[in-house]
């Protein structure tokens, strides 16, 4: 009955969700994701937007069966803790079988549909990660 996704919010989050936009603190040099109004590490408001690398390493992962409403057809969802340079992000893993996941494996960002709201006609895309392609042997 209720529209679950907001149209203005869908526009606002495009930077972080589509392009892995993060914020770099000019005071302490640390990067955080998603971007906040101040640095969560040192409190400085002197930040600049940066784009995270699109390739990284899987530091941990989980195969999630207890998935939320509206997404049960997707279960299980693969979830990764991905290190992108100096930053860790949490995101879904796609195009992979649970059995092939290993910590330390290389992954790369791809854009996928992450949520949809049928009633409002909104589809929200976002970055997911897939095992890094080697020599183009896999489909995207």
């Amino acid at each position, binding site marked *: 009955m209720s529209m679950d996704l907001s149209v203005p919010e869908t526009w606002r989050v495009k930077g972080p969700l589509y392009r892995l936009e993060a914020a770099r603190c000019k005071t302490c040099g640390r990067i955080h994701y998603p971007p906040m109004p101040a640095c969560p590490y040192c409190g400085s408001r002197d930040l600049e937007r940066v784009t995270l690398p699109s390739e990284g390493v899987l530091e941990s992962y*989980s195969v999630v*069966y207890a998935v939320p409403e*509206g997404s049960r057809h997707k279960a*299980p969802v693969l*979830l990764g803790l991905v290190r992108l340079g100096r930053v*860790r992000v949490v995101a879904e893993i796609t195009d992979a079988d649970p059995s092939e996941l290993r910590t330390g494996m290389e992954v790369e960002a791809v854009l996928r549909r992450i949520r949809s709201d049928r009633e409002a006609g909104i589809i929200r895309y*976002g970055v997911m990660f897939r095992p890094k392609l080697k020599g183009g042997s896999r489909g995207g």
Partner: protein
Amino acid sequence: MEVYITGVGLTKVGRHFDLSLRELAARAAFEALDSARIDKVDAVVVASTLSYREAGQFDLAGHLAGALGLKGAQTLAMEAGDASGLAAVEAACSLIRAGSAERVLVVGVDKLTDYVSSRVYRDLQRLYEAEVQALYDIGHAGVAGLLARLYMERYGVGRDTLSYWPAMDHSHAKHNPYAMLPFAIDPAAVPRALKVAEPLTLLDSFPLGDGAAALVLESEPHGDARAKVVLATSAAGYPSFTMNEDPLAPESVGEVAARLREVTGIAPANVDVIELGDTFTSIGVILAESLGLSKPGRAAVDAMEGRFTLGGDGPVVNPSGGLKARGHPVGATGVYMVGELALQLSGEYPGLRVDGARRGLAVMASGDGSSAHLVLVEGVA
């Protein structure tokens, strides 16, 4: 100024289909008021989390004050994720110390069974950063699963060893008449249970249940005083588990443990009884280690060896059964913890009794680990 706990009211955590949020709250509240032998208070502090999106009552504290027949009271509605209950105790203590109130009713209440569990999972995900992170269909348990794997791989701890943490909770809960799951489990059953967020299973995670707990706090002790609150503190705004330098050692929890030592000279390991906010097995061991109850990588082994149960050489952890077995009616849980500790210290606890306990500690992190809340209570006997 000390704050006395003079009344405690606990309801069994479970599926209370027949009770509305206010009726469930009233059960606990009336029991707390009666046990303190008072019928009026200056303030009502309500702790609730999920109810904003389930029952959906705005001005919840005001409406509850009316439903409980307590008109004229000042009201505070406290929402702090998993830690709302401890935040409410902290706020109530401030009201008393400020002289704004002499007698405060704290009521924690949440109902997680009015809707299907997949809706509740979606709402629980909002404990994490909601604009970007909570959009993924990862469920509430996902991050706990990531942390479990990280823990196992870093410390070489096997899945079977981790299972002793929830087994400890359950072995304690079987004595607790308020527990949702009052029975022991075989640690060998944990990895074989329904998968929730690998490597975690249903037996690693808290059950979805309804609950209400209440306390009466007063500025002056009287014959019914069960315990006193010595310290109630919190530290918010730290990096979440996954953003933190070390995901297995949240800075927020380290900070409240440091404050405890600084203010009272007491280390968590020297307290007699501890109620820990172990939403999942991995969070339980991380909290235990961040508080210094175990060395890094050792909490599950220590649990296996009986260190945290009666007769062990550590504090007794989760005599209630913890979030795993007593249950975790999210916003209410912190109030349960403090109520259980107060009864423990006054020798009235109907569950696993820790004889001679003088000090009890409750510690909870918010869902994503960015905040931590701590309450230390002491006996008054």
